């Protein structure tokens, strides 16, 4: 048995639904195999630029990132790179695993960013792409399960490296 802990920065433009998403995510643990458990510490960050300084004080030593945008809002999609780069700057020599999450899939008629656009940007940054609607409780668990699994894989890889150190 092992308990893994990861600090996850949840970031993106204001009002894209970050807080709605983090609050909608409740795990009962049944999705995890029995040999490990995972604690994700979600740092739900304010998107408003005036909070930028204070927000980044909480971003030291991040393990993973979740960048969110509102799929009905092009500006929020364009801002993803800024948020990603800011978080990545906390760990200049190391790539941070993460997820790109398109939120508000319930607003189909107002959609302006396609799945293809989202996926392409995600791929270019090594992020996994997800779509969800916290409002309809659609697919809100998937990004977090992905992050948990990714962190577990990372742990296993690092353990193998530690074995070869001496």
């Amino acid at each position: 048995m092992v308990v893994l802990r990861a600090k996850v920065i949840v970031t993106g433009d204001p009002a894209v639904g970050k807080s709605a998403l983090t609050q909608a995510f409740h795990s009962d643990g049944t999705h995890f195999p029995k040999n490990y458990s995972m604690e994700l510490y979600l740092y739900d960050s304010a998107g408003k630029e005036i909070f930028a300084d204070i927000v980044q004080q909480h971003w030291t030593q991040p393990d993973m990132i979740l960048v969110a945008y509102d799929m009905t809002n092009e500006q929020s999609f364009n801002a993803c790179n800024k948020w990603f780069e800011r978080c990545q700057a906390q760990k200049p020599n190391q790539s941070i695993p993460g997820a790109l999450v398109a939120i508000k899939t319930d607003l189909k008629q107002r959609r302006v960013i396609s799945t293809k656009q989202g996926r392409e940007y995600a791929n270019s940054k090594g992020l996994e792409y997800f779509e969800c609607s916290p409002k309809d409780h659609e697919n809100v668990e998937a990004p977090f399960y992905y992050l948990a699994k990714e962190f577990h894989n990372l742990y296993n890889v690092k353990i193998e490296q530690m074995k070869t150190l001496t």
Partner: protein
Amino acid sequence: MFDVALRSAGGTIALVTSFDEKYPPENIIDGSLDTFWPTTGMFPQEFIITFSTLMSIGNIKILCSNVKELCIEKSTKTEPVEFEPLVEKEIENIDGQMQREEIEASFMIASFCSNIIHVIIISCSKPCRMHIPVTSASHLRFLIKSAFDHFVSIHNVSVNGTAVH
């Protein structure tokens, strides 16, 4: 002087902040450089080594990976409380790996000078050395404040010392 942290010399691990049953914290004090204790995510992390009795400390050697900022504190109490700072070090990140022989050579250095403690930390490739005035302790607390990776490993901690009578 001998390694008083060793499990076989009565050393125990009083506290750890990470636990993976496959890599128990006792690996730190089993005398082997091959076994290790990994942290399992987030920082700070710490472990406390408790000696069988109050010890006069000769030198402290730590073999680890990915540790960046390390603080060592000591307590002379029976219980692991009231720790005082001993050393604090930020280790440089240097690429490349040390050879087994070099690691063993670094671990061989004995304390010839009776009023100084050598603290040797091997985290990246280059061992880093510090000197501190001689002191006594019944517990040592190792606080890992930050790291070069998501996880660090502590392979061995050896503490040369003799019981204070």
